[in-house]
């Protein structure tokens, strides 16, 4: 399974756009890129998933370059409630998820 590398932590302020980049150099042809969000004392929550180019939903956008060796999760105009841990996962997605340590995002007033 492809390994992912993402920053340990990030800081931002309310109203700013936050971009979290994940590196996955060994991504396989059948792998999808998925991002989960986790608040304290809760289970992870699915945010977005993509295979290539750009995916957008009501919560975030996911940018994937042509070589698919990295991806960027973009959160527009963050609020205090976006403070959480964000996990980048790579895999076929039909069974187990392999989580790394994630990126701890802190949004400040």
């Amino acid at each position, binding site marked *: 399974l492809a390994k992912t590398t993402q920053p340990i932590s990030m800081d931002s302020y309310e109203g700013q756009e936050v971009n979290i980049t994940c590196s996955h150099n060994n991504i396989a042809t059948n792998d*999808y890129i*998925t991002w989960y969000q986790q608040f304290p*004392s*809760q*289970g*992870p*929550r*699915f945010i977005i*998933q993509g295979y290539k180019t750009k995916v957008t939903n009501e919560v975030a956008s996911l940018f994937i370059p042509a070589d698919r060796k990295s991806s960027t999760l973009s959160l527009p105009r963050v609020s205090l409630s976006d403070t959480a*841990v964000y*996990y980048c996962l790579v895999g076929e*997605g*039909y*069974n*187990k*998820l*392999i*989580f*790394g*340590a*994630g990126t701890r995002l802190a949004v400040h007033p």
Partner: protein
Amino acid sequence: GAGVSQTPSNKVTEKGKYVELRCDPISGHTALYWYRQSLGQGPEFLIYFQGTGAADDSGLPNDRFFAVRPEGSVSTLKIQRTERGDSAVYLCASSPGTVHEQYFGPGTRLTVT
């Protein structure tokens, strides 16, 4: 509708005791997963059920850990002879089986003293 539920929310037990953790998946979800999360780390896969059978139990750390899903719905994770290193949050997730998104429960915090 109702999400994934887990009981108990907290469990404190003494070293050497046996514990059972329960997971109620979303109705109709055929796939069920167990993960374990230690403080400051991401969830770690334990076992995956498709229907009643364990499709992948490669994440179970040793033979003290066992999980069942006898009727293809509720699942129970069983830990024998608990050790202090078993202390963690145990997360359950379910999915319809053919999609990538997993729906997680709130977890059971297990503390072994």
